[in-house]
Structure formats: C-alpha cells, structure tokens
C-alpha cells in the first residue's frame, strides 16, 4: 500500500497545479466503516482524541447515548445512535461513526479562500492545515456532510485528518487500529471495496437484501466509506445524505462566478480606461473659456 504517499493532489485557493508528476503508487487509500459490525463502543472517539491530543468538554446526558452530542473542534468523530424498526417488531440499533468522509471532490477545499489551508493528498486524504486557516468558515458551507467545526479557542477549522501523521509514516489511523470488532478497516480503496463486497454478500445471506456500499458518486466517491445494512435508506443512519453533493450554491459561488465576476470587475476598469482614451474627459467649455 502506498499509504505513505502524501504527495499533493490539490490545495485550496491555489490556481496553479500542485506538484503532480509522481504516480499514485498503489492508488488512493480508504477507511471502510462496516456499520453491521459496529457496537458503538466509542473506542474510535477515544483513540482519536488521545492520538490527536484533543479533550472535549465533559458534557451532560440529554437522554441519549451520543456523547459528545456533536462533532466539535475537539471531537473529530462521534457515534450517532439510531433506534429503528425497519421491519415491524424487529428493532435495530444502527450506530454510525460520523466524521470527515474525505471526498474525492471535497467541497471544503473548493470553498476555502485561504491558499493551502486545505490540502488533498494524492492518496485521497483531505487535510486541514490550521496554520493557514483564517477561520472564515467557508469550508462549512462547502461540506455536504456538515463536518468541519470552527474552534472557539483559536477560530480555526478542525476535522478528522485521517491521521495523516500516522498514515504518513505507514501506520493506520488511530480509530482503525483501535476498533475492537474490526468494524473499521483501512487500506487501498480498491481493497476496501473488495472487502466491502464480501461483507455485503454476508449481510445479504443474513437477510439484509439491500446491503450496500456507501461511496457516493456526487462527491466523486469518498475515502471513508460505509457498509450499510440498509443501503437503500442511508437516511436511517442519523440522516446520512442519500445523494450528497456540493451544494449548487457553493458550486455557483466558487465555480463560474469567481472568475466571471473578477473578469467583470477587470472589464469595468478597462472599459473606463478605454472610454477615457477614446471619448476623453467631459470638460465644461464655458469654464475653460472663463479660465
């Protein structure tokens, strides 16, 4: 596995290509989260905080198992618990590990105005570089999964790095390593898709006829994928979006408008200039005469 490859594929707010000549080794990596194996133990949450030297607040219980209640600058991953009865009388406790999906077409990167604050490595990891982050929160508007959080401590955006520091030296992310049941696995994306296929076959044999891989095409596929027992209803899993994509508004804003509007402003200046040199200034003759 070319896990170590941290060559850059794309950088936020950078108009020229990033150094791109190296081949991608064994290809991009992926983390596969098999929800059918997840017991919601939160080991991944703890390992994530421990490895990344984060400590969220000791909160309160509001009547659910979800703690911390939501992603924060200190909690880059949280478990989301859903009690559902897909079939009448058959309770299922679906527990989804939420966190950055590391989209192949990352909306955060697209929205970010600060050069190099968000970087996509050629292995697929989308990483925030807080030293370049200006705290504008545009990444939040860009993300189809509602992941980035602005810290109240330093007004910078934080999210899962897929443990780029570990992956960079050839280790798996902390959450992957710790996962007691093997619900989280990590490897090349090709291998992970293959692994998922095996899991889906097993789930189908156990009666989950709609078991499927969640690797949404709307964001170009993701480098964090799920195996869902109910692949036809991702929304059962604490509102996992069925067909996520970068909001058309963000695409509009960070797409055509950006160059067009800039061009428009430039043209306006040019128009003025050429008007001046062709039509000349508007001078008042009477006044000139009287001068």
């Amino acid at each position, binding site marked *: 596995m070319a896990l170590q490859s941290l060559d850059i594929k794309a950088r936020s*707010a*950078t*108009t020229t290509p990033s150094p791109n000549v190296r081949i991608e080794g064994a290809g991009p990596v992926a983390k596969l989260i098999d929800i059918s194996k997840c017991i919601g133990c939160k080991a991944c949450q703890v390992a994530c905080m421990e490895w990344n030297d984060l400590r969220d607040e000791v909160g309160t219980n509001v009547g659910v198992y979800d703690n911390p209640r939501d992603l924060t600058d200190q909690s880059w991953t949280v478990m989301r618990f859903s009690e559902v009865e897909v079939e009448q009388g058959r309770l299922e406790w679906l527990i989804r590990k939420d966190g950055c999906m590391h989209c192949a077409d990352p909306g955060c990167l697209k929205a970010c*105005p*600060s*050069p190099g604050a968000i970087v996509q490595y050629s292995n697929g990891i989308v990483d925030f570089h807080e030293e*370049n*982050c*200006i*705290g*504008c*929160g*545009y990444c*939040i*508007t860009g993300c189809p999964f*509602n992941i980035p959080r*602005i810290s*109240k401590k330093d*007004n910078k955006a934080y999210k899962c790095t897929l443990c780029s520091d570990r992956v960079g030296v050839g280790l798996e992310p902390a959450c992957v390593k710790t996962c007691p049941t093997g619900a989280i696995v990590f490897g090349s994306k090709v291998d992970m898709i293959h692994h998922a296929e095996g899991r889906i076959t097993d789930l189908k044999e156990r009666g989950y006829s709609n078991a499927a891989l969640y690797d949404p095409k709307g964001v170009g596929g993701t480098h964090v994928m799920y195996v869902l027992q109910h692949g036809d209803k991702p929304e059962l899993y604490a509102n996992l979006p069925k067909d996520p994509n970068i*909001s058309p*508004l*963000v695409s*509009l*804003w960070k797409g055509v*408008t*950006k*160059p067009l*509007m*800039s061009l*428009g*402003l430039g043209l*306006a*200046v040019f128009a*003025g200039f050429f*008007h*001046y040199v062709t*039509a*000349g*200034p*508007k*001078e*008042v003759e*009477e*006044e000139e005469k*009287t*001068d």
Partner: protein
Amino acid sequence: MSKPIQRYTARERSNHWIVAIAFVLAGLSGLALFHPAFFFLTNLFGGGPWTRILHPFIGVVMFLFFMAMAARFWRLNHFTAADRQWMARIGDVIRNRDRGLPEIGKYNAGQKYLFWTMVVSIPLLLLSGIVVWQPWFAPYFPIWLLRIAVVVHALAAWIMILGIIVHVYAAIWVKGSVRAMTRGTVSEAWAKHHHRAWYREMTGK
C-alpha cells in the same frame, strides 16, 4: 472667474469619505477572500486571519455611515421626468455630446441609479454578512442559509463594486467633479453644465 458653488458641506464630505474608505478596505479585504488571485491583498490587513476579523467590522462601519448618507440624500434621489429624458440620451452623455440634455437637479439619473444600487446592496451585504460572520453569528444559522448568504454577499458586493468603479470613473471623467467631494464646491460653469436645475436653484439665475 465666477464664484464657486457649495455642493457638499464638510459633514457630507466627511460622511462620504468615511464610506468610501470603508468601501475600499471592505472591498479589498473582501476580494482577498473571494478569489485566490486577490488573496495577496490579505497582506494589507496583517494576514488572512486579520483580514477575516477586520472585514466584517469595516463592513458594519460602511453600512452605518452609508445609512446616514442615504438618509441625507434620500429625497434628492427620486426620479423625475427629466431623469427619464436624460437616461434616454445616455449614449450622447457617454460620447460627451451634452448639448440639449434636459435640465437636471443635483443628481442625474446615473447618480440616482448608483444611489439606489447602494441602498439595496449595502443592507444585503450586511444581512448576508452577519449570517456568515465567524465566529459570532454564523454558528447560529443553518448551513443552507450560510450557502445562500455567501452567494448573495458575493453578488451584492460585485454589483456594488461595479457601481463604484463607474462612480469613480465618472468622477475622473467629468472634470471638475472631484473637488465637489474634496473642497465641497464646484465651479459655476460645472454646475450650469451638468446640473442646471440645481444651478438655478442655488443661484436663482
């Protein structure tokens, strides 16, 4: 040499320039965050985070002073029949063929359009700006609203900047205009030529 005519009081000029300075700063800092090509402008403000911090405050200053200015000039910017005739001949105006233009008051139709453009876009900028203002207000709004706000903010800013480019150019183009906002006066000839109705009003001639 004829006596200059007072066009703007010291207060009005100060008000205008505060808005203008705020506009330049907000515009530059806004552009810096709008397109990577302009990101270098953040250096004018002490770097990216400072640009992000200052921009909304500058915007609020601009909004407040613009509102004062708008209140001041509100009545003067109602459109009249003369404005419509003037607009019909805008091509001649651009080509400096000013003969036979209708007599117009303190502001011509172009200036009025600019005024109303600002009246619409500046509050829009404020409202959309508040929605995306990190870290104070943005966390309280849903993400779909943030997404609308950033687009509205960008569009409103664009329209406003375009308007201001025209405004600045017009000031440069129409000789004798700039002093109205620097020293407060214009020449009699200037007033007579460009704003004859106003000229009559001011001089009684």
